[in-house]
């Protein structure tokens, strides 16, 4: 099953997504953790270490894919169970270049890559972040980033069987309730 989950920070998305990916395990095929975060500072390194620690013992095979998401199709077994965490990091890596330039069309390239992934892989959980409900007027680059992430969220939600929202450990099912119940 293709599952999309979003919500605010610290709402329990990643933990629930890990459980879902484990539920979709199809032995002897691996459960892949698609790591998207490219560390840019010490805080990121600590966050990555914390996430790795949280995944200890879950049986994930970690695949580093901070860019060109369709790359997982050549390195991984398509019959595995995938956890892609997160669209937010993927977009930041593709949009904000090391040169300091901003690629404002990065979302199109990512959508193409994701559509290839979603057409070839049938057990995947994709995580994003809901950053759309605050009373702040952002600079145009940040606003462009929000708009691009929302585009990817809507695109993935449309192509997934199940769409979930994490609300402080409670899960709201926006799409595919019957399918979700079937895996438990």
């Amino acid at each position, binding site marked *: 099953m293709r599952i*999309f989950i*979003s919500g*605010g920070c610290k709402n329990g998305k990643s933990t629930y997504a890990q459980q879902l990916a484990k539920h979709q395990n199809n032995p002897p095929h691996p459960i892949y953790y698609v790591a998207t975060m490219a560390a840019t500072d010490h805080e990121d390194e600590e966050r990555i270490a914390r996430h790795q620690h949280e995944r200890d013992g879950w049986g994930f095979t970690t695949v580093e894919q901070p860019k060109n998401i369709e790359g997982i199709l050549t390195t991984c077994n398509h019959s595995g169970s995938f956890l892609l965490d997160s669209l937010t990091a993927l977009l930041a890596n593709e949009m904000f270049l090391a040169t300091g330039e901003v690629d404002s069309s990065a979302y199109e390239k990512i959508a193409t890559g994701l559509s290839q992934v979603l057409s070839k892989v049938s057990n995947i959980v994709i995580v994003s972040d*809901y*950053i*759309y*409900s*605050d*009373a*702040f*007027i952002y600079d145009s680059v940040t606003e462009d980033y*929000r*708009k691009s992430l*929302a*585009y990817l*969220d*809507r695109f*993935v*939600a*449309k192509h997934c069987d199940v*769409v979930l*929202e994490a609300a402080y450990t409670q899960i*709201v099912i*926006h*799409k595919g309730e019957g399918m979700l119940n079937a895996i438990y």
Partner: protein
Amino acid sequence: MILIFGGVYQGKLCYAEDRFGDTRTIVNDVDKWLLSLIQDGKDVSEEISRFFDENKDAVVICNDISCGVVPIDPVLRKWREDVGRFMAQAAEKADEVVRLFCGIPTRIK
């Protein structure tokens, strides 16, 4: 009145246009209108009352801006609260309230 809300870029206008086409008046971006009223020093509660009188049959779309940090800027702070007050009244008056999440509607009233 039908109220459609959600975070920015969640597909609210697209949903309203698909569902109602040209059959009903769609009033989009109420939150931005409220911000311009505040910036122009208008009496917001008076304008909101008039808005409800004039848009009884409209499809009203508003961004939900209630879930972030309290802004330091007093104008944005007032904006955040005025949008909240508007939304609460609108949801009360509306025959139907729909929330959009990543392009997916949920009817909550």
